[in-house]
């Protein structure tokens, strides 16, 4: 954990909303609003937050799958947002993504073989015969029988499809893998298979993970560091142990207390947040969390809290963090 593999600075992504008179823009969804972070070689950075808080968008902006509105993304010393098309294509070999919905992310008209050959064909890697070999070996590696290669996605179960998705991302030997809720759609029994697989692969291939999820137990289990997002902004960032043991942000606390624990004998005090996530089209003033915050003060409505390193490597954006 020395060099930052990926560095993000003040990244913003606003999705314009159409629908004004003359079909003009009538506002924008502030999906990601000023995120800065570093991801180190070999670590797993977990990103959690409620639905719609911008986790996926952040992940996709970092890979430039959506064009960020502003900000800077540095990967391995290269400014990702400044690259031209062919440079970008080359860079894509190094950073890949696995999606939540394994079925939707596979071309239904491709056999598994075709799906896995595709990346090599696009980048024109290897001989034809060795491509096949690679497909076989990667299939074996993700725990699928190579004889499945001629089948279509709809002939597989969810867990198997997710393995295919992972295999596709890995076949180019990337350095960074963005995992956008890779196990959310899977059954519990299968979920653990995939998590184990991901952990094994990380060791084998020396991968760096950005792991997006809203299941806190999974994030806790797999991440080295965790970023908590709220309404497109960073709320808290710390090492996994630190965050779960002593959360600083009231939102993180509420989030952690809300997780149902599969132990009937544990009875906890719950912090129940009132209301829903505000609209990202016009986020609340000041601290975006103040509308639901159980300890909000007047200040929170007016002033945007600073991003502070309250403890070592433990960052938080709250006026009163540490005082609570």
């Amino acid at each position, binding site marked *: 954990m020395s060099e930052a593999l990926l560095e993000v600075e003040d990244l913003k992504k606003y999705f314009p909303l159409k629908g004004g008179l003359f079909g003009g823009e009538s506002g924008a969804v502030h999906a990601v609003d000023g995120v800065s972070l570093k991801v180190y070689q070999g670590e797993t950075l977990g990103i959690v937050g*409620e639905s719609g808080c911008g986790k996926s968008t952040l992940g996709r902006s970092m890979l430039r799958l959506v064009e960020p509105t502003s900000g800077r993304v540095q990967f391995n010393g290269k400014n990702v947002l400044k690259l031209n098309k062919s440079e970008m294509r080359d860079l894509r070999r190094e950073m890949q993504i696995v999606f939540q919905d394994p079925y939707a992310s596979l071309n239904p008209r491709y056999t598994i073989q075709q799906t896995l050959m595709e990346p090599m064909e696009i980048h024109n890697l290897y001989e034809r015969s060795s491509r096949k070999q690679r497909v076989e070996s990667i299939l074996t590696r993700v725990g699928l029988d190579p004889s499945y290669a001629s089948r279509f996605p709809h002939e597989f179960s969810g867990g198997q499809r997710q393995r295919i998705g992972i295999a596709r991302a890995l076949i180019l030997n990337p350095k960074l893998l963005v995992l956008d809720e890779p196990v959310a759609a899977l059954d519990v029994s299968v979920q653990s298979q995939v998590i184990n697989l991901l952990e094994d692969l990380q060791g084998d291939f020396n991968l760096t993970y950005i792991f997006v999820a809203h299941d806190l137990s999974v994030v*806790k289990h797999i991440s080295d560091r965790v970023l908590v997002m709220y309404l497109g902004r960073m709320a808290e960032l710390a090492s996994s142990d630190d965050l779960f043991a002593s959360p600083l942000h009231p939102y993180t606390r509420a989030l952690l207390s809300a997780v149902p*624990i599969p132990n009937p004998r544990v009875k906890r005090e719950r912090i129940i947040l009132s209301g829903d996530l505000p609209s990202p089209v016009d986020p609340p003033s000041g601290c975006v969390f103040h509308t639901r915050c159980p300890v909000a003060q007047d200040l929170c409505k007016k002033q945007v809290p600073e991003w502070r390193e309250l403890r070592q490597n433990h960052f938080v954006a709250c006026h009163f963090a540490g005082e609570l």
Partner: protein
Amino acid sequence: MKVSSRLDSVLPLEGEEVGRVTNVLEVQSLSVEFNVNGRYLPAVSDVSLAISEGETLGLVGESGCGKSVTSLAITRLLSKTARVSGKALFGNMDLLTAKDKEMQRIRGNEISMIFQEPMTSLNPVYTIGGQISETLLLHKDISPREAFAQSVEMLKKVGISRPEQIMHQHPHQLSGGMRQRVMIAIAMACNPRLLIADEPTTALDVTIQAQILELMKEINRDFGTSLLLITHDLGVVAEMCDRVAVMYAGQVVEQGTVDEVFFNPQHPYTRGLLNAIPKFDAQSKERLQPIEGNVPSISRMPKGCRFSPRCPHVMNQCVERPPSLFDVDDAHLSRCWLNVEKEA
């Protein structure tokens, strides 16, 4: 080898008057088959459940194991391609053979249901108020004005602020959590004796999920409504339920009090499930212990024990003969040959 009567614990014994526990609902040997391309496939086989007054019964299991089908079979909301057998006694009426009229009277009035998808379960073209009042108007002899007033009351009860305003809004104007509250308000409008909640929080965020679970607890407490809570989240079960039934591939494989099932799991599947989930409260990051393999599809159910292909303890007899539910303990049942061996 004693095959349990399975429901001993909750069934009133013949002639016994004192200390009697009333069951709101008794499901006996419910089986559901679907006609798929002319072939009948078993989605639910031989499921027996009982819910007593004021109790919360959890029904857990992975996707496709037949949880929803069970609940829909009880309320007779399955499509016409389904073939249902068994009994579902509600009071002394068998819901499975009741007349349509009778069912319509019971639904929404004595038994209500809420579903997983709050987004699609409400009719997009009618107002919230209209949809809540409808239930009242269908079952109670009251004026629309009264129904409106009672609906507002109901919305207040499920914790919606500005209920009068919400009454005139349409589903798409509400957030997921609000919609689920509205669904609960609809379901609770006639104060039913039994509420079936089919994964009511799966589609919601954790913070919202916590709100809804809290609300359901309150309802259970304040109205004394019995609750059949369907979920795949063991955490939710642990938090909410008195008893739990674990389903696998259309069958109940283990049933007992929450404590028993979580701390003394008998069926290898239950054990596997508990080991497979990351422990939120654990300190160390131990490696997860997954259950290998996949859930069998209903068109290819294994001949013997349905869990046998994935079971770490599989024996020859598991492959050959299906086990039935065996008594492990008082009120603790398990569908595994191992339990018989133990007994023996």
